[in-house]
């Protein structure tokens, strides 16, 4: 994964679109598993991670299966991660903040 996540100027951001214009907010730096990444103010942590090529958000409790971004509306709990040390954070609803530290969650979070 680290090879994927270290990609800069990732091509996954849409710049030209026939209908939409994306007025992105201020560029901000955050950390995924200790590695600095760029995102934009106004997007969610989950969106910023996908834009940086991160696919695995957590590992399930029993079978340690990889889980990623699924519903994007705070309903499925597939995207629970550890955010600034706080486990079980639903990153599809959590806004991206300057310097926020995001880590993959393994199993149940310890509070």
């Amino acid at each position, binding site marked *: 994964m680290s090879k994927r996540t270290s990609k800069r100027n990732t091509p996954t951001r*849409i710049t030209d679109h026939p209908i939409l214009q994306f007025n992105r907010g201020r560029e901000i730096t955050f950390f995924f598993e200790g590695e600095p990444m760029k995102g934009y103010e106004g997007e969610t942590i989950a969106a910023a991670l*996908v834009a940086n090529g991160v696919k695995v958000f957590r590992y399930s409790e029993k079978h340690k299966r990889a889980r990623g971004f699924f*519903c*994007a509306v705070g309903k499925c709990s597939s995207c629970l991660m550890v955010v600034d040390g706080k486990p079980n954070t639903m990153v599809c609803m959590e806004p991206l903040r300057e310097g926020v530290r995001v880590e993959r969650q393994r199993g149940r979070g310890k509070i």
Partner: protein
Amino acid sequence: MIDGGIVIVGGGPAGLCAAITAAQLGAPVTLIDDNPRLGGQLIKQTHKFFGSKSHYCGIRGIDIATLLEQQLSATPTKVILNTTVIGHFKPNILGLANQHTFTKLSYQRLIVATGASENTILFENNDLPGIYGAGAVQTLMNVFGIRPGKNVLMVGSGNIGLIVSYQLLQAGINVSAVIEALPKIGGYHVHAAKLARLGIPILTSHTIKAAIGKEYVTGAVICRVDKNFKPIKGTEKRLKVDTICLAVGLSPLVEILSQIGCEMVFIPQLGGQVAWHNENMETTVSGVYVAGDASGVEEASTAMLEGRIAGAHAAATLTGKFTEAEAIINQAKFELAAIRQGPFGEKAAKGKEKMMQTVR
């Protein structure tokens, strides 16, 4: 504790229309949504709507969201964003949670317009990262301008599957194929034709057998199905995709309604478990209403009309403006019936009819 007057849960098309209508009839209204902005699923819908002028035909969903927001801001409605309703306390109190606090809000009338959640289907490895609900793909690419992947397999050829496939192409993403278990395309042919013209195969009588990948999706196995939807051996085909998008239907979000004690009925045509409601969208608990996908999965146009009915009726019972409300309700009912007469409204019409026959 604060009293919210008419409290509306959900700021999508149904909730917004309910709020606007109720507030215009002079009722005190509080609208709650768990997102940072109003509009619900409209904020990711770049396609133009069908129907008549009063249903915003020819206007894109994203622009309808803005229009409704403007209408709402002309009323004194109180809007609470980034907040989730996490429970109901008897007799008429909601528990609200945001990132920092828990608060309670009492209501005199409640309109539940919570929408629906995406369905999934059974296949090997269906939990791998890289498998998204169609709504999530729309959120990523149309709200945030992010491509979920480079090569997508679309599962489901209903209107959502077809529209989102076209939007993927607009965003510069390749759609390998659209597969459909039924022997014919589910959605409007005008949407399917757009894909066909661009050479995207729409494979009917096909299903997904497995997602390939260890940590995330690297491919998919699809196969033909027979009349009984059983996979036909020897027809398996591997597709090299990094994303699988599921557009296989929605289920109403009814948790609060069932917690309140509204009588629930199971109606497949409406997406499953729904709260029984009468013509005025009132549930079996007096003063508690439902509108939009939460009352049966349909479409944004009907959600807006149901919202108007619920909002008008709730407001009238509070303010006494029955004559004004009646005119709004009758007009909305007339338009609802017209939409449901069409070939794509038939399913929901049957579902609602079935519910009405379950006398309460």
